[in-house]
C-alpha cells in the first residue's frame, strides 16, 4: 500500500488535471490559474534540486526564469518561431546560463552564495531591460495565441472522438501542454534525485568535504544541479512567455525569486508534492487574499483542518497535544478575525506575512513535512536493497600492490601563516602494510591526512602514489586514484541511509549519464543493481547489514564510525586512511574494529592509521611514524618506537631524564 501511494497520487493528479477544464466548466480563469500553477511548479521542482537537495540558496531563479521567457519571446519576435522552438531555446539557453551561474557560486556558501545568485539575477534583469535591440527593452514583447499542434490535421479526430469543436480544444491545448510538461518534470526530477546524481547532490549538502573525498567532485555536481535546475526554470519561463503572451523585463525581479524560494520552503523540501503545494500557494493565495469572501472561506477551511489535525494528534499522544494547542488556537482565531474585517486589500500583505511566519513557527518543514509528520505513510521511501549481497564483489584489485612503495611523501611542508604544521616530513608506505601515524595533539597528523587527500595543497614537497604525483590534485581526483579516508569527527551524509552513504562511495562504478537517469535505461538499472548488491556486501562485511535502511544520523555512534569505513571501502581504495577510528568507541567496539582492520588488510589494502589508543596502534601496525610539532621524530616497528626517548619526551613533556626521576 505504502509503496503504491506515489503511483496512486501521480495517477490521480494526472486524471484530475486532465479532467479539470471540464470540471471547471471551461472557465478560462480557473484553467489559467491551474496552468500558471503548473508552470511555476516546473520551476519550483527544479529549484528544489538546488535548495532542497544540494542545500544551496538561490535568489537568481527569477533571472533564469526570465532568460527562458525571453528565449522564447525573442525568437518569436525576431524570427516568428512558435511554441516548440521557443521551449527548446528556453531550455537550452537557460541551461547554459545555469552553468554560468554555477561557476561563481561554486566557492561561496551561505549569504555569499545568496548574493552571487542575486547579483546574477539582477544583471540579467538589467541586461534584458537595456538590450533593446534583442529584447525590445522595457516595452516588452507581445506574443500571439500559442499554437501547439496543427489542428487542420486533427480536426476530424477531435470532432468525432471527443465530440469537441476544434475551437474549444484549441483554447485548451496550451493548458494540456503545460500540465503534461509539469508531469514530465515531476518524472524527470524524481528519476534524477534517485539516481547517483541525486545522491551526489544530497551528499554535497551534508558534508562537502566527505563528498569530495569519496571521489564525487562537489564543484562538478553543483554545476549539474544548477544546470538541471536552470533548464527546468527555462522551460517554465518559455511556457510562461506563451501563457501570458506578454513579457517585459520588470517581471523577473528579486521579489519573484523570493516568492519561488518561499514556495519551495512552504511546500516542503525534497518532495515532488511540496513544489506543487508551493506553486498552488504562491499562485492562488494572492487571489484569495484580495477577496474578503475567499479569505473567510479559507479561514474556515484552515480552522476545520486545524481541528482535524488536533483530533489526530490527540489520539496519538497527549504530550504532542499540548504543543499543538497554540497553533490550533491561532488557526481557529483567524476565522472570527476575518469575519470582522470588511476590506482586505490594504492588509493583504500583512496577512500573507503572518501566514509565512505561522508556517516557519509551526511547520518548519513546510506543508509536506507537516503532512509527513501526521501521516507517516507519506514519508519518502528509501529504496531498500532488493539485491542480495554478493560477497565476492566487494573489493576490486587495483593492481598497485606490486610497487615497492605505495605512497611516498617527499619533504612536505605545510605552512599556515607563520605556523609550520608540517615541516619537511618524509614518509614511505609499503604496500599491504598498516602504517601508524602517532603524535601528540597538534603534532600535524590530521594535517598530513589532509595533505594526502588533497584538502590542503602542501606549501612545498611532493606526494607520490605509486610513481604518480598526486599533490596539487583535487580531493576528488585523489580519491579517484585510490586513496580513501575517514574523518576524525564523523562526516557522514546524515539525511541519507547507511546503504546510500555506501552508494556515494560507489559513485565511481557508474558510467551512466544524466540522460540515462532521466530515461531510466537498462544500463543505469543494471549499474544501480550491481552497486546496491555490492553496497550490501560491504555493509555485511562491516557488520552493518541490518542498518542498511537507517538514516546515518540515527545510527549509534560506534556504527557511524563503522559506516564511515564502509563508505571509504566502497571507493575500492588501494590506500585507506583512518583518522582516529577508535575515538569514543567502547571496548567491545574497539575489538570489533581491530578485527575489521585486519580483515581489510587481508584483502590487500594498505592502511594508514592515526590513533591515540596505543594498544590498537601497537597491536595492528607494521610500522609507526611519530610526529611532533610538524616534524617526524621517529619511525620504525612499534616496539622500537615505543621506547624511543624522543617519543616519550614528546608525549610526556620534558626530557627523558626528568620522566625517569
Amino acid at each position, binding site marked *: 500500500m505504502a509503496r503504491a501511494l506515489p503511483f496512486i497520487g501521480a495517477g490521480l493528479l494526472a486524471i484530475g488535471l486532465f479532467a479539470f477544464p471540464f470540471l471547471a466548466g471551461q472557465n478560462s480563469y480557473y484553467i489559467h490559474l491551474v496552468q*500558471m500553477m503548473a508552470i511555476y511548479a516546473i520551476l519550483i521542482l527544479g529549484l528544489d534540486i538546488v535548495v532542497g537537495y544540494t542545500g544551496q540558496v538561490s535568489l537568481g531563479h527569477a533571472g533564469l526564469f526570465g532568460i527562458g521567457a525571453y528565449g522564447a519571446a525573442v525568437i518569436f519576435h525576431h524570427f516568428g518561431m512558435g511554441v516548440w522552438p521557443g521551449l527548446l531555446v528556453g531550455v537550452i539557453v537557460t541551461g547554459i546560463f545555469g552553468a554560468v551561474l554555477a561557476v561563481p557560486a561554486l566557492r561561496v556558501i551561505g549569504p555569499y552564495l545568496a548574493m552571487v545568485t542575486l547579483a546574477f539575477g539582477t544583471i540579467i534583469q538589467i541586461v534584458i531591460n537595456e538590450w533593446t535591440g534583442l529584447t525590445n527593452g522595457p516595452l516588452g514583447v507581445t506574443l500571439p495565441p500559442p499554437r501547439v499542434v496543427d489542428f487542420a490535421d486533427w480536426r476530424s479526430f477531435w470532432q468525432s472522438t471527443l465530440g469537441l469543436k476544434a475551437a474549444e480544444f484549441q483554447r485548451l491545448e496550451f493548458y494540456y501542454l503545460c500540465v503534461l510538461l509539469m508531469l514530465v518534470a515531476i518524472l524527470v526530477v524524481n528519476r534524477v534525485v534517485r539516481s547517483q546524481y541525486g545522491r551526489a547532490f544530497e551528499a554535497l549538502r551534508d558534508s562537502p568535504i566527505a563528498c569530495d573525498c569519496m571521489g564525487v567532485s562537489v564543484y562538478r555536481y553543483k554545476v549539474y544541479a544548477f544546470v538541471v535546475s536552470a533548464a527546468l526554470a527555462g522551460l517554465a519561463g518559455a511556457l510562461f512567455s506563451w501563457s501570458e503572451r506578454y513579457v517585459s523585463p520588470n517581471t523577473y525581479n528579486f521579489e519573484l525569486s523570493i516568492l519561488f524560494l518561499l514556495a519551495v520552503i512552504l511546500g516542503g523540501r525534497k518532495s515532488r508534492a511540496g513544489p506543487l503545494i508551493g506553486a498552488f500557494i504562491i499562485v492562488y493565495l*494572492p487571489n484569495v487574499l484580495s477577496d474578503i469572501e475567499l479569505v473567510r472561506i479559507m479561514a474556515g477551511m484552515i480552522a476545520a483542518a486545524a481541528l482535524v489535525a488536533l483530533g489526530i494528534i490527540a489520539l496519538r499522544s497527549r504530550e504532542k497535544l499540548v504543543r499543538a494547542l497554540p497553533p490550533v488556537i491561532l488557526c481557529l482565531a483567524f476565522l472570527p478575525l476575518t469575519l470582522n474585517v470588511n476590506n482586505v486589500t490594504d492588509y493583504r500583505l500583512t496577512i500573507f506575512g503572518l501566514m509565512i511566519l505561522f508556517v516557519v513557527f509551526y511547520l518548519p518543514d513546510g506543508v509536506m513535512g507537516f503532512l509527513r509528520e501526521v501521516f507517516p505513510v507519506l514519508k519518502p521511501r528509501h529504496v531498500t536493497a532488493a539485491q542480495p549481497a554478493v560477497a565476492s564483489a566487494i573489493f576490486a584489485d587495483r593492481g598497485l600492490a606490486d610497487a615497492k612503495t605505495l605512497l611516498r611523501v617527499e619533504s612536505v611542508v605545510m605552512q599556515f601563516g607563520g605556523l609550520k604544521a608540517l615541516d619537511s616530513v618524509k614518509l614511505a608506505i609499503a604496500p599491504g602494510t598498516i602504517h601508524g601515524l602517532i603524535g601528540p595533539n597538534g603534532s600535524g597528523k590530521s594535517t598530513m591526512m589532509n595533505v594526502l587527500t588533497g584538502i590542503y595543497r602542501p606549501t612545498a614537497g611532493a606526494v607520490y602514489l605509486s610513481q604518480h604525483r598526486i599533490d596539487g590534485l583535487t580531493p576528488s581526483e585523489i580519491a579517484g586514484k585510490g586513496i580513501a579516508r575517514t574523518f576524525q569527527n564523523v562526516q557522514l551524509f546524515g539525511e541519507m541511509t547507511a546503504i546510500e552513504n555506501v552508494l556515494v562511495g560507489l559513485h565511481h562504478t557508474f558510467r551512466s549519464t544524466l540522460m540515462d537517469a532521466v530515461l531510466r535505461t537498462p544500463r543505469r538499472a543494471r549499474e544501480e543493481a550491481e552497486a546496491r548488491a555490492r553496497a550490501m556486501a560491504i555493509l555485511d562485511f562491516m557488520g552493518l547489514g541490518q542498518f542498511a535502511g537507517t538514516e546515518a544520523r540515527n545510527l549509534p555512534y560506534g556504527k557511524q564510525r563503522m559506516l564511515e569505513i564502509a563508505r571509504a571501502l566502497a571507493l575500492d581504495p588501494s590506500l585507506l586512511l583512518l583518522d582516529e577510528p577508535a575515538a569514543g568507541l567502547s571496548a567491545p567496539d574497539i575489538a570489533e574494529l581491530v578485527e575489521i582492520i585486519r580483515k581489510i588488510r587481508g584483502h590487500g589494502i594498505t592502511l594508514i592509521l592515526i590513533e591515540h589508543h596505543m594498544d590498537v596502534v601497537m597491536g595492528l601496525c607494521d610500522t609507526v611514524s611519530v610526529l611532533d610539532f610538524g616534524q617526524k621524530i621517529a619511525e620504525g616497528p612499534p616496539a622500537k618506537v615505543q621506547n624511543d626517548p624522543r617519543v616519550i619526551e614528546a608525549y610526556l613533556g620534558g626530557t627523558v631524564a626528568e620522566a625517569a626521576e
Partner: protein
Amino acid sequence: MMKIRTFGAVAALALALTTGAFAAEPIKIGLSGPFTGGSSSMGVSMRDGVKLAVEEVNKAGGVLGRPLQLIERDDEAKNELGAQIAQELINKEKVVATLGFINTGVALAAQRFYQEAEIPVINNVATGTVITNQFKKPDYDTNYVFRTSAYDSIQAGMMAEEAVKGRGYKKIAILADSTNYGQLGREDLEKALEKLGVKPVAVEKFNIKDVDMTAQLLRAKEAGAEALLCYGIGPELAQIANGRAKLGWNVPMITSWPSSMQSFIDIAGANGNGVMMPQTFIEDKTLPKRAAFLEAYYKTFGVTKIPTPVAGAQGYDSVLLLAAAIKQAGSTDGPAIRAALEDLKEKVEGVVTTYEKPFSETDHNAISANIPVFGMVKDGKIVYARGEDAKNSGVVRKKEKATN
C-alpha cells in the same frame, strides 16, 4: 469550484442584503491598480476618485436602477498579477467593465483579456501611447480599450513645444526612468523634438528609487543642455530637481504629469519651484464641479490634499463616462457598452472636462491635445503656469479633434 462560487454568490448576496442599499442586483465594475508598493500613491488616489464617483452615482439611484459595485484588486504594478486579475474579474467576478491601470506594462499585459472577452476597459491613469492602439483597426474589428488620461504623445508634444518654441531652447537633455513608462515617454519626446528639428544633446536613464542623480545630471550639463525634459514619477523627479540644485545648475525643468504628485512637491520643496508639467486637472476650485469634487474627496478620505490629483480626477471621470454609457446602452452587455462609449450622446460633466462625444469608433482617447494645460510648482502648490490659463480656469476646455 462550483461550491466556492455558489458560496461566494450567497455571501455577496448576504452582504448586499445586510448593507441594505439596493434590492436590485448590482452592476459589477472591476478596478485594477497598484494599492501597495512603489506606485501605489497614484493607485490609491485613482481608487479613491473612482470610489467617490461610484458612491455619488449610487446615491443618485445607480444605473438602470441597479447600484454599481466595485471589485477592487491590487495588481501591485506587476504585469503577471494584472493579467491574472483581469481573468479573475472577467471570468469569476463577471464584471461589466473595468477601470484602472496605473502602469503601462500592466495595461499591455492585462487588457487583451478584456478585448477577447469583449468587455470594455477604461484606462484612467496609464499614459503609454500604445495602450489604445493595441487593438486598433484593421487588425481588430473592434477595440475595447478606452482612456481618460492624456497619453504620452500629447504630453511629450506639449513638453517639447514649450521647451523649443515657448522658450526657445535648442539644446535639450532628456532624463527618463528605466521602466516602460519612462522609456515609452522618452521615445515620444524624441519624436516630438524631431518634429521641431531638435536632437537632444543627452538622453539619460535613471532607476526607480535611485538615490543619486549626479551622474545623469552631469552628463546633461556637460553636453551643454539648456533645459531638462524629464519623464518619470514624483519621487524620482524630485530627486532630479534636488540634484540639480545640489550641483548649482539652475536649468529649467519640464516633466511629464507626475511632478504634480504630492511626493514631488514635498521632496523637492523649494527646488521644485518653477518645474512645469502638463496637467489635465489642477486642484483649483474655480469651477463648481471641481470644487464639489475636491470637497467631497477631502471630506470622505480625511485629507487636505489629493496625493495625486490627476489620478483622482481621471478616476472619478472614468466612472461617470462608464455610467453614462451603460445607461445609454440600456444593458450591461460588453459590446453594447462599447458601442455606447463610442457614440456617447449624453454630455458628461466631469472634473477634467465636460465630455461631449469623448470617444469615437476610431478614437478611444477622451483627452485631446488642447485639454491639458501647463501646471507649475509654486511654493508647495500646483498652479497654472500661464497667466491666460489661470484667467480661463473657469472655462472648460473641451475635446477638439482626434489626434491619435
